[in-house]
């Protein structure tokens, strides 16, 4: 019993740290974006205020049960993904529930929240929600293909799907990182990562103005607050996943912050530099070069 309680407490600790980190990160990133555009931009703690404000709305509406629990699915997906990942390498405290499932599980589990949220958005009856979901799902399928090939290449390289072992194999030197030992797989996965973060050029899912911000169009108040929490946790979890797979993991929080920040910056840079793709364009794009790189990664690890 004691172990379970400590596990839960440790998990809450991780959750607390990562949530704050995620919120600050999103604020900082927007700040950086603004600075690039020669603006001051938001205050880095603005996401906190927005979050609090959304919880303080006095009225709210609901379109039905599925609409109501859609965000719950979403946040469960985000928190779950985080908690099923080993966050800090070698730390039993921040290992959380990674004993329950391996990389395959993690890759599948990230869709748990997405699909639940999509259903909730669907029940709102707003056509734009459905349109956003349809775009998001379509883009995701294409994006996942290079990612899968990269993951498989990794698994071949390390002979395991266990994230701990993948991280362990990258320790020692910066040159042991997958990024350097298996560059093709890393490139393929980092290209997929762009769409995973949902930033430009792959942000047509949310396309504000054209379809008011996609699936969450109807979400507001506390429901939106839950989604915002997820928007802090979920990307952070994904960053941690990529850090673990490609960049040698992290042995302490400082390392984690630095690495994930720069991983995030990759998508931010690309996002600022490139305009938006239409869905059919992004799908075709992923079936082009990223896919070839993924296949090449597989062939390389298999035959060389």
């Amino acid at each position: 019993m004691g172990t379970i309680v400590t596990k839960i407490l440790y998990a809450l600790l991780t959750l607390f740290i990562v949530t704050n980190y995620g919120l600050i990160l999103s604020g900082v990133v927007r700040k950086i974006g603004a600075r690039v555009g020669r603006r001051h931009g938001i205050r880095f703690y603005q996401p906190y205020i927005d979050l609090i404000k959304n919880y303080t709305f006095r009225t709210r509406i609901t379109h039905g049960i599925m609409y109501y629990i859609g965000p719950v699915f979403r946040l469960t997906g985000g928190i779950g993904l985080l908690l099923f990942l080993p966050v800090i390498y070698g730390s039993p405290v921040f290992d959380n529930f990674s004993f329950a499932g391996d990389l395959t599980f993690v890759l599948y589990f990230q869709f748990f929240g997405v699909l639940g949220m999509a259903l909730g958005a669907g029940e709102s009856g707003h056509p734009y929600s459905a349109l956003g979901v349809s775009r998001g799902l379509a883009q995701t399928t294409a994006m996942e293909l290079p990612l899968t090939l990269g993951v498989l290449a990794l698994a071949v390289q390390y002979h395991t799907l266990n994230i701990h072992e993948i991280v362990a194999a990258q320790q020692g030197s910066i040159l042991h990182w997958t990024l350097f030992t298996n560059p093709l797989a890393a490139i393929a996965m980092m290209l997929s990562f762009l769409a995973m973060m949902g930033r430009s050029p792959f942000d047509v899912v949310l396309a504000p103005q054209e379809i008011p911000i996609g699936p969450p169009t109807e979400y507001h108040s506390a429901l939106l607050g839950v989604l915002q929490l997820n928007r802090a946790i979920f990307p952070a979890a994904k960053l941690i996943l990529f850090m673990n797979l490609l960049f040698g993991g992290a042995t302490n929080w400082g390392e984690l912050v630095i690495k994930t920040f720069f991983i995030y910056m990759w998508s931010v840079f690309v996002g600022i530099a490139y305009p938006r793709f239409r869905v059919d364009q992004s799908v075709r794009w992923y079936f082009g070069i990223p896919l070839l790189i993924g296949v090449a990664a597989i062939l390389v690890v298999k035959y060389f």
Partner: protein
Amino acid sequence: MGKEYIEKRTVISPEGNPIEVDPLKDYFCDAAPKSCKSASGIIEKFANWARSESLWVLGFGTGCGAIEMRPLMTPRFDAYRFGIQWRPTPRQASVFVISGYLSVKTLKRVVRSYEQMQNPKFVVALGSCTINGGMYWDSYNTINRLDHYMPVDVYIAGCMPRPEALLAGFDKLKHIIREGRGEGANKYAENFDWYKGNQKKIIKDWDMPDYNW
């Protein structure tokens, strides 16, 4: 796209039974809004601070004043730094910026959008037209005073007001919110019949429920 879609009609169910459909009743929830009690003491203060520092704006840009909203996002004025952000949907916005004159036709849309926002919500009226009709005060087709139709928190006078004036207006709004005076939504609920009456007086082709959730 006229009114026929909200008139009562009969459709045939898959089993072949006729079904009466009354769109205004069946499609829309028309419960009247209720005045919401504010939380007590420090909690409300904290909440008001958060509300004031996170102004999510729904810009209603049919009037000429709309053009003055855009520069707020540019490096020159950069309203973001004050916690002001634009949202594309009334559901998520807390500040409704109505830019300039309102024709009778657009008033209906304004009312609907306003009602779709959640409590607390604040209205910023932009330009002289919203105060007294401005240069259109005797027009057959524009309204004169916006606060006959919905509670307005801040008027920004001018024809048209400069972005600086807008920023000043937002600053004023922040003060109002922090002081706990930004209770327009409750005011609307409390004087619902009066507002509705005014709205219906001016909008002849009323084709929506009395309250748009």
